[in-house]
């Protein structure tokens, strides 16, 4: 059987763990197969979980989150016959497939949409913890926004420095109000459970928000501009489907391959004007053909736009 390991946030984090879970469930529903799943409780459990699953014959073993990188590097060689799939981080081992997403590209599109939808010319970004991964979202978003509105302004907030930063909808809501008072009228949340509070507060205040990781448009129909969707569910689904035939190496899930996208559905249809759709279309094209290069914060820890 395949196995799926979630990171510390847990499988219902409203974020990419949950997306992974959805992918696995879809596979289960379609194939009728069964899989093992596991949530981390502590850092030391990572290695333990990998080894126990590998020993129990689970194959492939899919895990979400960059934090598995180190451990997998150590464990993978001990189980050469087991295939591992790591999402969000690259580990170079012969039996490991690494899947990374170009969140900056998806966020760029979100920024383009925000620029179109914003009346004030000021938009907001609310991140969970101040860590590089979240800066990647922030930077892509800012690039997309500035590309459309060079004179516009992006207000950035991070919620905290402890794990509570990912589960504090109250603070998320207050940050929305703080950004609102500074003129922001579209706010992009990349903050896990805190994001739920962001989307809620934005809807309450009558401004737009942008969801993250999975499609969150349905949370407040007609009030969530879009969601920057990371195809983690697809990746898990594909991995489970490929089973032991998984190809090792790095798989970059970018805009072109449909790895990242901005969600368009019935819930946000009334919000998306034709110009917006066209702008997204255009931006997508330019990114895909390489005429626009979205800078990845991770490569040098800097962002070309502020």
């Amino acid at each position, binding site marked *: 059987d395949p196995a799926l390991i979630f990171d510390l946030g847990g499988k219902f984090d409203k974020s990419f763990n949950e997306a992974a879970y959805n992918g696995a469930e879809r596979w289960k529903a379609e194939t009728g197969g069964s899989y093992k799943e596991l949530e981390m409780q502590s850092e030391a459990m990572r290695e333990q979980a990998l080894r126990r699953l590998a020993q129990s014959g689970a194959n492939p073993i899919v895990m979400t989150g960059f934090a598995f990188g180190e451990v997998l590097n150590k464990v993978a060689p001990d189980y050469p016959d087991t295939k591992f799939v790591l999402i969000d981080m690259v580990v170079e081992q012969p039996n490991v497939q690494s899947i990374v997403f170009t969140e900056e590209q998806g966020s760029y599109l979100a920024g383009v949409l925000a620029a179109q939808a914003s009346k004030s010319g000021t938009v907001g970004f609310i991140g969970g913890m101040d860590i590089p991964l979240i800066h990647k979202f922030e930077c892509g978003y800012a690039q997309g926004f500035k590309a459309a509105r060079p004179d516009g302004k992006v207000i950035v907030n991070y919620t905290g420095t402890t794990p509570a930063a990912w*589960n504090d*909808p*109250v603070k998320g809501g207050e940050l929305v109000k*703080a950004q609102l008072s500074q003129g922001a009228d579209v706010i992009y949340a990349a903050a896990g459970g805190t994001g739920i509070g962001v989307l809620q507060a934005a809807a309450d205040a009558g401004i737009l928000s942008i969801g993250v990781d999975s499609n969150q448009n349905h*949370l407040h129909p007609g009030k969530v501009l879009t969601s920057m969707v990371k195809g983690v569910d697809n990746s898990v689904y594909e991995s489970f489907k490929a089973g032991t035939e998984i190809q090792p190496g790095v798989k970059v899930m970018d805009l072109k391959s449909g790895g990242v996208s901005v969600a368009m559905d019935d819930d946000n249809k009334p919000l998306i004007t034709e110009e917006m759709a066209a702008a997204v279309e255009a931006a997508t094209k330019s990114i895909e053909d390489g005429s626009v290069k979205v800078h990845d914060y991770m490569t040098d820890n800097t962002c070309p736009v502020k």
Partner: protein
Amino acid sequence: MDFATLIQILDSAVRLMVPLLLACLAGLYSERAGVFDIGLEGKMLMAAFCAGAVAYATGSAWLGLLAGIGGALALAALHGLASITFRGNQLISGVAINFLASGLTVLLGQKIFALGGRTPSLQGAARFNEITLPFADALRPVPVIGRLYAELISGHSVLVYLAFAMVPLTWWVLYRTRFGLRLRAVGENPASVDTAGVSVTRLRYAAVLICGALCGIAGAYLATAISAGFVKEMTAGRGFIALAALIFAKWRPWSALGACFLFGLMEAVANRYPNLDLGLVTVPSMFMNALPYILTVIILAGFVGRAIPPRAGGEPYVKER
């Protein structure tokens, strides 16, 4: 900083201080009666869950509030059982209650809603909505005062006004009623109450249950007023901050108001200025987020003297060794 910004920050401070204030007053009742309580966090969390769940199920915020109070009361009763009836260690009991709430809320939430401990989002009457006070809109054009009234004083949920009303009420109960007199006495010298023919046990239970009820309101506020539904661990350490505020306030109601306002204000300021640009250096967001805590330490060190807790606090009342 312009006036609008000032109002926004104050407004935010008011909203953020409410759960702190309610929990702080909750702790005040309990600790003034000599029962220490580091389980404020857990009681609030349990209340937030119960309120969120019941408000969702019934569509009524008021029923949610009742449920929240009920949930917190249950844990308060447990604390009373451990620390009053069985003369257990109050600190351990508090720690246990925090763990219990943290586990049970997710366990129950997952069992009922299967959303990983989250409750579904609340809508409409399942939430306490902001209420506009009379004449708020009419007065808005009046410079300063009018705007203060319309934007700062008006426009909060009913629980906010309830929380603020609790401050004078608590003061009055504590210093103007028989119950308050006995409550304060039992926290200072339970033997004096006992020899005066009043039951120490009953008084302490009353205090602990009031504490539970207030934590219940605080939790309900978190889940059904300031946000729309329960998210696991959503109290995010506010119970501990409330405890700090209580010590800061030296166990006095009006000072509690001040202390909680200060914490709310500092968080609001940090939210408003996520990256303080000081010209040469920009203070990183991590430190802006930690600013309330850093300032607390500085204020504590600089301006607040020794805080002497109620003398009998933390000790079970034992007549015969």
